């Protein structure tokens, strides 16, 4: 029995469906990356798993129980951190811990908070407010906050997409290290194929929306721990990267769309300077808009 299971899930927001007929099953302890174009409904997908939104049709089940509302068994790391600006690092994490483990003794809870802070290497910044932290540090707080709840599954919604390349690499390594430590089930949403290859056991491409659905999954057989430098020369890595990239690009080509756009030309018809001054007409205002068809290939 799969740990997390989505069957025939679709979701729209009034208009055309953002996601349609999503089927996904994830085993316990698996690290799955869902890769897709921006705007293809990745965040909607994770909101459905988190229970922040309800599917229009189909069911989302965790441990064979249908998900109807958000809960601390599913830890979320939001794309934009979502830290409360008035809480320090410690306070932020303590809010989670106090809520999830109300029966623990205060010392035990403080210990859990301290452990979470240490896990993400923020001990020196424990008493800082989010505005005093860099983007990478903020995202670590967000990860620590999710981990401190000891969730059954960790949902990472493009956690690193707002960071610069170097910070990104550091945090990717850190996520791998943390995952290696307790092998939680993880769903990572990303638009970075390399990131997915570095971290995931399985990569599932999401076709572009509207009506996005999941493509065929690619199993990543690379041995762990995956060393970033070594990977660049690994033939299997190159093969998988080409495979996933081509799959995504294939969707892109299919998405090749025709856009009808109204081009409004400058509202004047220029005079012809080649004609002699006496015979040429003055500039005209034709008040005409010309419709043109442009084909854009993605």
């Amino acid at each position, binding site marked *: 029995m799969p740990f997390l299971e989505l069957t025939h899930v679709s979701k729209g927001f009034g208009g055309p469906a953002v996601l349609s007929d999503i089927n996904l099953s994830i085993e316990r302890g698996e690290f799955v990356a869902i890769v897709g174009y921006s705007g293809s409904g990745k965040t909607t997908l994770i909101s459905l798993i988190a229970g922040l939104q309800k599917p229009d049709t189909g069911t989302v089940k965790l441990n064979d129980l249908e998900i109807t509302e958000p809960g601390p068994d599913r830890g979320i790391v939001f794309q934009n951190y979502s830290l409360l600006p008035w809480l320090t690092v410690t306070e932020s994490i303590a809010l989670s811990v106090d809520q999830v483990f109300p029966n623990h003794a205060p010392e035990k809870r403080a210990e859990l908070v301290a452990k979470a802070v240490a896990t993400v290497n923020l001990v020196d910044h424990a008493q800082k407010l989010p505005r005093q932290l860099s983007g990478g540090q903020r995202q670590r707080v967000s990860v620590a906050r999710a981990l401190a*709840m000891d969730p059954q599954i960790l949902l990472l919604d493009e956690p690193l997409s707002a960071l610069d390349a170097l910070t990104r690499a550091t945090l990717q390594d850190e996520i791998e290290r943390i995952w290696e430590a307790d092998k939680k089930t993880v769903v990572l949403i990303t638009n970075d194929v390399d990131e997915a290859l570095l971290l995931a056991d399985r990569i599932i491409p999401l076709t572009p929306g509207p009506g996005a659905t999941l493509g065929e999954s690619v199993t990543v057989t690379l041995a762990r721990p995956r060393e970033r430098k070594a990977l660049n020369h690994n033939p299997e890595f190159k093969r998988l990267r080409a495979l996933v990239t081509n799959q995504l690009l294939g969707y892109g080509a299919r998405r090749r769309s025709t856009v009808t756009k109204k081009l409004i030309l400058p509202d004047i018809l220029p005079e012809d300077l080649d004609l002699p001054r006496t015979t040429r007409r003055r500039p005209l205002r034709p008040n005409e808009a010309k419709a043109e068809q442009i084909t854009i290939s993605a």
Partner: protein
Amino acid sequence: MKKFKLDWLILPLVGIGLIVVFWALSSVTWATNLPSPLKTWQASRDYVLEPFAKRGEMDQGILRFTWYSLILVAQGYALAIVIGTPIGFFLGLSKTFTKIFDPIIQILRPVSPLAWLPLGLVLFLNTGKQAGTFGALFTIAICSMWPTVLNTAVGVRAVPQDYLNVGRVLKLSRWKTLTKILIPATLPYMFTGFRLSLGIAWLVIVAAEMLTGRPGVGGFLWQEYNALIYEHIILSIVVIGLVGFVLDRLMSLLEARFKTA
């Protein structure tokens, strides 16, 4: 303009100087009933130099009067905040509540304190001698409440969905969501409302004292007008302005402290 040493002090003094010159010229040319600056100072000296003296019910040092006014303002203002903040929260949280009460708020909001005061006196008529005090409190509270109500409502509506999602994932109780997320997120807006409310409360107190004849800086102003001591009108105006300015500064300091993010 180029910056120079002490420009923050000298330039405002230049402005004040110009106004005093204009005042002095006016008092000798077109507004001959207007006391000159010098006469105003001579007539006000006792009130300013012995600011806490009490010579009679309506003949007291100017700061003593101001103190009476401030106490009344503080009471009315506290009432306004205690009533206005929850109303603001309800408006921000519930669409139904907004639909029911927003129109009436929009209608009551522009009503002048001068119109509320008689109603306040009538409401508390059976309290006898206290009617004036309660009426004034009622007027201050109802007039100064609106900025708090509206700013709080705007603040609550502006709380990012992300913050609320954090609470939903943690399954925070309603009370915890309120205290841990909604109130801290709304505080900056609330304090802007509090500051505007205090400004209005101070405006209203003068009008309320004038109509009820209570001892206070506004009551003093009206009494001295009736007693033809015009110098004291100017003294009162200056004091009312200065006190209002100081109150506003203090509130904006508080406001800046609570600016998050």
